[in-house]
């Protein structure tokens, strides 16, 4: 089951014979619950080396070698059963059987980071007090062994009153012993009843943890590891910022310089395919649909796949390495100065991929005011859907030259990402001024161990990204391009028309109507048309431009080559204006719908759309006028 597949069949159908045993994976953030979930169920839920990746419950099914059927619920990480954030509340509610849609689990699988027992044992002791059938999965035992940490497993079992199994969730067969234990326990769960209390006296629990640690830890972990030495550089008040800037800079340089060859191959392939199809099909409306609508439209989006994959490669490497929480730590002061919680870093970082999961990730933020502020600015972070638009305009207008050791196109892309970050911080600052600053909550962030990125995980992550992107291209973008082609083709030009036929079409007329609105910011009617389907998803604007320009073209040879077409017909001022528009571009229905869902109100969603439209228009207007003054109108 992939992360995006619906559960194919009800649980009842999964096991026709025996009762399905429900397992709940519970533990601190970043202790390996989702890795264990994936290992048990064969799912591909997102795993990363920082806290707060899972913010909703997820379920999967597996059939054990012994013939038992299990339903596994992966829960958001929690430090305690006294929840501070909405995601922790989900864990508590499921565990206590307080969800309307979910019975309490039959067995609780407590996942514990073996290298950090002191912090992880609190929730273990709380769950133990519930007196539910439970098993402790002592995870990351490989890392513990490398550090020289030795734990007396038998003694730990006695102390906490539940079986303990050593696991390494990221390895194949790393959970076999756990499954065997679960099978043994499953036979007796029918008789279990909830008869305990999870209430927690923090001081008493802490004393108990210290006592248990003294009894079970045979040898403590070695200190001054490679990670400690690296942290002295990465978290240094001066060097740390230099490292962070260098990493970000490298990413955006690589997006252009590494992608050149595969992008050119794809572009040539799309052009050749368009020409071949055009030559093979008879003249008529079907040929126009396939060549000008589908190949030109979809083809102009699909050529950006290499750039998207390179961007995600770096994001995945950073996620797996454990560097991201360090970056959050470094940026906490800056975030605090504009009224944001340090916890906002991870949601904002997720928004570089897409604002939808970024907005969901705000559930880890305790303060409602901070959470709303983070939601409101998340779409300003440059999501991957903007990348095709940026890459198209940069490729057409910015020469591929070097400035010193840097690629100029990469520099412009870096500047656009910085503009997104700067505008998000500015809006957060304004929100702070309008709503007042909320009570300061110091950033409590777990700094995980550094890990070498796992090649298999990286490959899998990139495959998932490619699959998601191509699925979007093959479904919704394809559908929108076909609709776009229809609106740009019909009705046809009247007898004796002198303008291109598209000028007389529905889309052409709409574009000319909108031109009055967008003319002050330097957009032509083709851009005005493209912005409308771009409301569905930002990158659709690129495909729409491809279709519109293909239908405006007079010769088949230029019908699918969008980049030279816009380079010839747009001024530099128009190009910069469009880039400025897309720094703020509010066009994303899914993001607005997610804001509505997460805030339970349309008001924030409408406010977001309004302020982003206003900012986009203002930024484009200023950019266009300044560029004209500087001679960019030619």
């Amino acid at each position, binding site marked *: 089951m992939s992360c995006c597949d619906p559960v194919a069949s009800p649980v009842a159908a999964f096991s026709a014979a025996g009762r399905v045993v429900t397992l709940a994976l519970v533990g601190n953030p970043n202790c390996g619950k989702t890795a264990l979930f994936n290992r048990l169920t064969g799912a591909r839920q997102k795993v990363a080396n920082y806290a707060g990746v899972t913010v909703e419950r997820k379920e999967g099914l597996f059939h054990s070698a012994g013939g038992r059927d299990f339903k596994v619920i992966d829960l958001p990480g929690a430090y305690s059963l006294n929840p501070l954030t909405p995601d922790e509340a989900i864990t508590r509610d499921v565990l206590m059987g307080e969800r309307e849609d979910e019975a309490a689990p039959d067995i609780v699988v407590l996942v514990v980071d073996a290298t950090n027992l002191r912090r992880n044992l609190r929730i273990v002791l709380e769950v133990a007090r519930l007196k539910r059938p439970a098993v402790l999965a002592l995870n990351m035992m490989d890392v513990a062994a490398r550090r020289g940490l030795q734990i007396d497993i038998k003694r730990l079992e006695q102390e906490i009153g539940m079986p303990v199994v050593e696991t390494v969730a990221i390895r194949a067969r790393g959970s076999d012993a756990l499954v065997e234990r679960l099978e043994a326990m499953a036979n007796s769960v029918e008789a279990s009843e909830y008869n305990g209390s999870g209430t927690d006296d923090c001081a008493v629990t802490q004393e108990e943890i210290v006592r248990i640690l003294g009894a079970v830890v045979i040898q403590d972990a070695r200190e001054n590891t490679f990670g400690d030495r690296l942290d002295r550089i990465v978290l240094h008040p001066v060097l740390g910022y230099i490292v962070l800037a260098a990493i970000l800079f490298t990413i955006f340089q690589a997006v252009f310089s590494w992608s050149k060859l595969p992008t050119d191959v794809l572009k040539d392939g799309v052009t050749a395919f368009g020409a071949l199809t055009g030559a093979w099909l008879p003249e008529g409306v079907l040929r126009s649909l396939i060549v000008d609508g589908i190949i030109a439209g979809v083809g102009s989006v699909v050529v950006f796949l290499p750039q998207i994959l390179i961007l995600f490669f770096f994001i995945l490497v950073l996620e797996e390495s454990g560097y991201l929480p360090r970056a959050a730590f470094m940026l906490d002061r800056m975030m605090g100065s504009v009224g944001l919680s340090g916890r906002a870093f991870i949601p904002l970082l997720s928004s570089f*991929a897409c604002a939808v*999961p970024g907005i969901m990730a705000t559930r880890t933020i305790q303060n409602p005011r901070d959470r709303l502020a983070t*939601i409101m600015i998340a779409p300003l972070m440059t*999501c*991957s*859907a903007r990348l095709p638009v940026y890459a198209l305009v940069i490729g057409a207008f910015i020469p591929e030259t070097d400035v010193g050791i840097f690629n100029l196109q990469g520099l412009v892309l870096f500047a656009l990402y910085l503009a997104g970050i700067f505008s998000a911080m500015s809006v957060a600052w304004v929100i702070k001024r309008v709503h007042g600053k909320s009570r300061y909550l110091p950033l409590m962030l777990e700094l995980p161990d550094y890990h070498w990125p796992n090649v298999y995980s990286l490959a899998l992550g990139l495959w998932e990204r490619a699959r998601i992107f191509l*699925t979007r291209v093959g*479904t*919704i973008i394809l559908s929108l391009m076909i609709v776009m082609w229809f609106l740009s083709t019909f009705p046809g030009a009247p007898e004796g028309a002198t303008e291109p036929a598209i000028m007389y079409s529905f889309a052409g007329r709409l574009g000319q109507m909108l031109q009055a609105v967008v003319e002050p910011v330097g957009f032509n009617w083709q851009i005005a048309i493209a912005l409308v389907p771009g409301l569905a998803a930002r990158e659709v604007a690129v495909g729409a431009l491809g279709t519109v320009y293909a239908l405006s073209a007079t010769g088949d040879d230029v019908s699918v080559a969008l980049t030279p077409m816009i380079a010839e017909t747009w001024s530099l001022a128009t190009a910069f204006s469009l880039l400025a528009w897309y720094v703020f571009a509010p066009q994303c229905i899914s993001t607005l719908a997610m804001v509505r869902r997460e805030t339970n109100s349309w008001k924030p969603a409408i406010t977001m759309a309004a302020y982003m439209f206003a900012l986009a228009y203002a930024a484009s207007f200023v950019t266009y006028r300044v560029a004209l003054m500087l001679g960019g109108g030619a």
Partner: protein
Amino acid sequence: MQHVLVALIVLLAVAAVARRYAPPAWRSAFKGFAAKGARKLDWHALAERLEAPPPAVSDCGTGGCSACSGCDLSPKTASSGEFTIVIQRPGRS
């Protein structure tokens, strides 16, 4: 013939776009209208299919989301109100 084929492709594309982006109330109203029409034509199987409740599926990774990192596959329940954000105006000090 070309025109018929193109019309069919465009209709399918419109249906796909509407299915993804039209508000649920519009979709259900359209389905009700279509089911009524199907019954008038004695196409009862089609009408029943149109009137059947939609299966619970995730829209993860389709709409604007190109980076699935945690979408709930379960249908929404009343408890989803727990995420409501309520901002209280700060008192003057």
